[in-house]
């Protein structure tokens, strides 16, 4: 047992660390008022992109639905085609209770339509509110 132990050096060091932090600025943010800046690649709720003319990019090829590990996406193509050749989806449903935001849908999309957005506050009181249909997914384009 040395002098340092008798004079509680170890305990004093600990107190010094905590008092140092006592006078430092809090690291946390006050969430609903302040919000974190999201990274560019942030994976939030999906939306469907549109091209310059405002027409949907999605051609209802169902690649995203196939690759989705949880089967959260359901795509049905519309019978009528735009300009007689471009297919568009009639229904495009994403079940957010199943989605695990893995990015596979965005990666697999050949036309670059489905994209992970920055929406992350998805709490809901009912199961129905967790479903996203075609119209809602299109709204993601500001």
């Amino acid at each position, binding site marked *: 047992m040395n002098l340092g132990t008798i004079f509680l050096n170890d305990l004093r*060091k600990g107190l010094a660390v905590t008092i140092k932090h006592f006078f430092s600025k809090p690291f946390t943010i006050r969430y609903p008022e302040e919000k974190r800046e999201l*990274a560019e*690649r*942030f994976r939030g709720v999906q939306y469907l992109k549109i091209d310059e003319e405002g027409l949907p990019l999605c051609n209802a090829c169902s690649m995203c639905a196939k690759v989705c*590990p949880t089967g959260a996406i359901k795509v049905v193509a519309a019978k009528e085609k735009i300009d007689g050749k471009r297919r568009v989806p009639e229904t495009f449903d994403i079940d957010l209770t199943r989605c*695990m935001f893995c*990015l*596979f849908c965005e990666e697999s999309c050949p036309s670059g339509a489905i994209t992970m957005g920055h929406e992350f506050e998805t709490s809901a009181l009912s199961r129905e509110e967790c479903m996203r249909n075609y119209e809602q997914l299109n709204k993601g384009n500001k």
Partner: protein
Amino acid sequence: MVKVRELTLNMGPHHPATHGVLRIILLLNGETIEDSKPVIGYLHRGIEKIAENLSYHQFMPYTDRLDYLAAPSNNLGYVLAVEKLAGLEIPKRAQYIRIIITELTRIASHLVWIGTHALDLAAMTVFLYCFREREMILDLFEMYCGARLTTNTFRIGGVPYDLKDDFIKKTLEFTDYFPPCVDDYEKLLTKNRIWMKRTKEVGFLSREDAINYGVSGPTARGSGLDWDIRRDSPYSSYDEMKFHVPVYPEGDVYARYLVRMEEMRQANEIVKQAIKALEGSEGLLAENAPKKGLKKIKKAPEGEVYHAIEAPKGELGFYIHSKGDSNPYRLKIRAPSFVNLSSISTMIKGNLIADVVAVIGSIDIVLGEIDR
């Protein structure tokens, strides 16, 4: 005549110090533990069964949910096993990126460990400091792949993105910022007499028992088993990195604590080296990787592979039995926490109740991985 009766105490599954849903049934004599029986499975999701019914590619996000504190590590273990099966050669740059991300993961995982371990022994402040640093690492993950916890970082055959300059700058800033933080934790704990009393000569596990119980990772290195998969059977270019593997022969909680503290510093060094190695290296995807965004392996060769990596908790192994389909016929996850936890009865026998939480903290279990 005094009648002595043993007391059966049920600890968990919702006890504050059992790190999730672990349950331990303790047989007590006073406060001394005569016998114990861990009960697990409260978080069983049948991930191995899920794997049998998904393609190799689709199973990737599920590996995040094993050891949810070190998701990129699980991704790496799985990806390497599939690449071994498919015989893919990964380009250098992708390998370095994988090293950077997984070593940051190791730091993040160890930060949660030291935080919760100290919290179990009532030093709550360390917990908050650790989470502050972990938050910075999670920000880096978010910058790289868009998610913080369940990252789904890598892809079979390589990595999805290159590192941006911004990311490299921030990572280098972090590596400079981090070592003084470890010094702070050490000031609060390492030489603290209360901490030493609580951890020294508690939860003893001998080297023989460690091998016998299949204990791996820092827990084994705290028992004097000089074995680190990164060094001894290197994968993903770890052979190019210079790092020191800390080994302490004491086999108690304090030894495991020292091992992990040193590992955090070493991981920090590896990140620096890997960033240096990144310069001039090329390639994000394997030549023969399934093209177009690595959609899926259409057909894997028939055969069996086992690939183990050094996850933050220990040896994380993926055993894949393939029958040549697009999905594994059987996928077994050798979870380090599961195996490490099986030694707990030996460690806590003869100790007091207060030591149980110290030991649970010191073997660093994650129930998502144990119950799968």
